[in-house]
Each structure stands twice: as structure tokens, then as C-alpha cells.
């Protein structure tokens, strides 16, 4: 479904070139749940943004269902079926939750169908539907609305940057259900062991490179040994 070939991303810092991503290649299969994990600064979010077209790679190419999309912008990729849940969702003034759901799904939803998306992410829908997506909402609420938009957009390839942050009041099981039962392709950046365990494949990144890639069973010992300090066990409330 998605082939990433030799992606490099460089920035200039203090007059010197710095490699953020160093020759990343990977192949994501249709309906696969892939978790990308690794220490902070290893390039996970940069890779996710390059996949969505938010950042342009310095070199390399991205092929989606046989089409070279390296030069396509965010909009074109979204129209091809990409969805993206940001690590830190942005807020708006004068734009309601319902407005964003309508934009995401490309149609005017009835209140009940809009509520359906919100209920799936653990929000009491009718309380939120007319609220503005502004700074009066908590970080956790914004993260869940971000996921509801992913559902409303119904994209084939969903990229989520640390979706579990701020879900303290929401059942973790619902998040797991979202990734496993939607029958879509998910690329999820996460440090959560429970998410890593259910992934079809785990990608461990380190210093801009893919350190290891494979099924959880194969990478488990490597994860424990190499980056155990970053793995967070989910504790039930």
C-alpha cells in the first residue's frame, strides 16, 4: 500500500546541516497496524509529517498504491485517503466540533451521525457537538476529537501521532478497538506497551534511522533492552 524509499530529511541548525531522518525505507501493507516507537528525538514525528506531506523530504520517494506521491501536498494526499491525527491538536475560533466533522466527512452530517463518531472516542456527544474547538477544551478532549475526525474522514491510511496522550478518562480498550476493528491501515506513533503488543509490526527508530522492524515477539527483547526507559505500561484506572 505504502512504500517509503530512502527518505532523508535534513535541517540546518546553527549553520550546520543536521540529519533528522537518515535513509528510511519501509513498506506498509493494506489494513496493517504499524506502531512506530523509539526515544524522543529519534525522528518519529518527522517521519509521520513527511508521510502526510506536512514536511517535504530532502531526498527519497513515497509511493502510495503504485503512485509516486512525494511531491503531492497535504490536500492531495488527504483526497487520496490519508488521514492524520496530530500530537498536539490545534484549536480554532468560531469553528465547532460539528463543523470539523462535516469538513472531515465531506458532507453535512445529521446530529446523530456526528454524535456517533464522538461516542466512539468516548465523548458524551451532545455535550460537544456545538462547542467550538477552542482552548476551553482540555488536551484530552481535543485528542479525542482529533480521533473522531479520523473516523469521520474514513481514510484508508491513518497516521496518528501519540493518540494515547490525555486519554486518562477514556477507556484504553476503546482506543485499541479503534485501531483493530476499523479495518483500515494505521501507522501509529506510540510508547504504549499495550498498543505495541497488538501491532502487526513494530518499527523502532533511533537517531533518525530504523533500528529494528518486525512483529512484537521479534522486537520485544530489543525494546526492553534498548528503550525500556521510554516504554510506559498502561495502568487501568
Amino acid at each position, binding site marked *: 500500500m505504502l512504500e517509503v524509499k530512502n527518505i532523508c530529511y535534513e535541517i540546518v541548525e546553527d549553520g550546520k546541516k543536521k540529519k533528522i531522518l537518515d535513509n528510511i525505507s519501509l513498506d506498509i501493507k493494506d489494513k496493517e497496524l504499524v506502531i512506530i516507537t523509539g526515544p524522543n528525538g529519534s525522528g518519529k514525528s518527522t517521519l509521520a509529517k513527511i508521510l502526510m506531506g*506536512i514536511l517535504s523530504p530532502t531526498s527519497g520517494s513515497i509511493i502510495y498504491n503504485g503512485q509516486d506521491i512525494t511531491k503531492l501536498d497535504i490536500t492531495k494526499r488527504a483526497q487520496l485517503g490519508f488521514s492524520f491525527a496530530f500530537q498536539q491538536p*490545534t484549536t*480554532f*475560533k*468560531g469553528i465547532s466540533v460539528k463543523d470539523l466533522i462535516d469538513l*472531515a466527512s465531506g458532507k453535512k452530517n445529521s446530529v446523530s451521525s456526528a454524535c456517533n463518531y464522538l461516542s466512539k472516542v468516548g465523548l458524551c456527544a451532545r455535550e460537544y457537538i456545538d462547542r467550538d474547538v477552542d482552548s476551553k477544551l482540555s488536551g484530552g478532549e481535543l485528542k479525542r476529537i482529533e480521533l473522531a475526525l479520523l473516523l469521520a474522514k474514513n481514510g484508508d491510511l491513518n497516521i496518528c501521532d501519540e493518540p494515547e496522550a490525555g486519554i486518562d478518562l477514556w477507556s484504553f480498550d476503546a482506543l485499541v478497538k479503534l485501531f483493530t476493528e476499523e479495518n483500515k491501515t494505521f501507522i501509529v506513533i506510540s510508547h504504549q506497551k499495550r498498543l505495541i503488543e497488538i501491532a502487526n509490526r513494530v518499527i523502532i527508530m533511533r537517531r533518525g534511522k530504523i533500528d529494528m522492524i518486525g512483529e512484537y515477539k521479534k522486537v520485544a527483547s530489543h525494546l526492553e533492552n534498548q528503550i525500556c526507559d521510554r516504554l510506559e505500561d498502561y495502568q487501568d484506572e
Partner: protein
Amino acid sequence: MNEIERKLLEEISSLHDVPQAGVYNIRKNGKLLARGVDSEVNIVSKRDKDGIDIIVKKGIKGKSIHIPVIVSEEGYKDKVYNDFYIGDNSEILIVAGCGVHNNSGFITGHNGIHTFHIGDNCKVRYVEKHIGIGKKTSKKVLDPVTVIEIGKNSKLEMETTQIGGVTSSKRVTTAKVGENSNLIIKESLLTENKDKVRTVFNVDLVGENSKVEVISRSVAKDNSHQDFVSNVKGKSKCFGHVECDGILSGRAVIASTPKIIAQNKDAILVHEAAIGKISEAQQQKLMTLGLTKEEAEQTIISGFLK
């Protein structure tokens, strides 16, 4: 009314034509076009100057009053004094506004001086829209003046909108808020090309437990210029909050000058102002939903000015 005048009327008042019933006063090019009154609300022409008195009896609830003004005669500069007398215990909606059309090289415009005398225990919503249409280079000038006096235990919600097409505007609102009363002002402005707007709010919180909230949202595009001035005085135990948010694009300029003067130790006055370009994060989020950059920008601006 011709097609342009009908369009102006609809834009500012949501009326498609002269109403068949209700309370209204439609003014066109300085003359009365149509008027409707009833036993609860009277509208009478002033004798000493051009304008009307709108008199709402005590205890009138659920009433709407429309008083739109149309200026379509090129080169005509209209000036009118409208006084609203709202009786105690009334709950009403007033829809006002002015639409100017000009294709000529002559300045065309309107200067409406609206004075509100709001009694005790009232709830008033005042919606005012200003628009200009016609040639970009033709001067369309709107200088609204609003004077407000609110009695005790009353609330006035004022929504004032000027979305494009007005080349020059000086907007001055002066208010005195009485005991336990609340004034809420929501202003939305959009300027383009070389438009210039100066908007001034002078609010005196005179009554014990009086409140004011001024929320100004503005978008300045191209080479337009906006100047926002707020001047809130807390003269008793009161609360005042002024929020000025601006979005800039092109070579536009927005200036915000807050002034809050607390003249009583129990006065709490707050001012917030933020001016900047359209947020890239907001644009990117909407693009991930499938909108183009331009559609995203338009969506952000429309929401912001809503």
C-alpha cells in the same frame, strides 16, 4: 426598490422586500421608504433633525424591530439620528444596519447616530450589519455612532459586523452601564484593498456590579488598515473584559490600543489582544481533512468572524 437595493436590504436585515407586517422603518437615500408600527412599539419622525424615535412601551416581550438604511444614490452622504427608548421589563431584538452601493467617483455614505435609552430589567439584542458594494475604487463611507445608556438589572447584547466593501469607517461606541447590568459587544470586521477602519469603544461602568465584555475579531487583508481603541473605566465594583483578536495578511496593518482605568478598588478590568497571521497549524489541520490551502484560509476566517 431595484435589484441592488433589494440585495442590500437582504444582506443587512434578512428582509427580502418591504414587510407586510411587523415593526420596521426602511430608509432609502435619506427618505422614508416604508414604516410599520403597532400598539406596543411606535416610530415617529423627529421634528428638530433628520431621524426617528423608536419607543418601546414597558413590558414588551419577544418583539423584533427592523430599521435598515440603504444608500444607493451615488454621491449621497446620509446622516440620521435614531433614538431608541426601551421601556422597563422589555425583551426585544433590534436589527439595524446600512448598505451602501457606489460605482462613482463621488463619496457615498451614511452616518447613523443611534442612541439607546434602556430602562430597568430589560433584555435587548441589537444586531447591526454594515456593507459596501460596487466598484472597488469607489468610496463607500460608513461612520456609525452608538450611544448607550443602560439602567438597572438590564442586558444589552450588541453584534456589530462590517464585512468588506466599506472603504472608510469611523465607528464610535460610547456606553454607560448601570447597576447589575451587562453590556456585551461582539464586533466582526473585515477590511480589504485600501480600506481604513477606526473603531473606538468608550465604556463607563458606573453601576455597582455592572459588567462589560467587548470581543472584537478582525481580519485585515491587502493594504487595509485597522485601528482598535478601547477605553473602559471602572467607576464602581464592576467587571470589564476587552478582547481584541486580529488576523493579518498581505501588507495590512492592525493597531490595538487598550486603555483600562480602574477608579474603584473593587473594579476588575482585563484586556487581551492578539494579532498575527493565519495559523499554519490550523491551515494544515484543515488540509489534512481535504481542503485546499485557500479553502482552509476561508474556513478559518469565516469561523473567526462568525
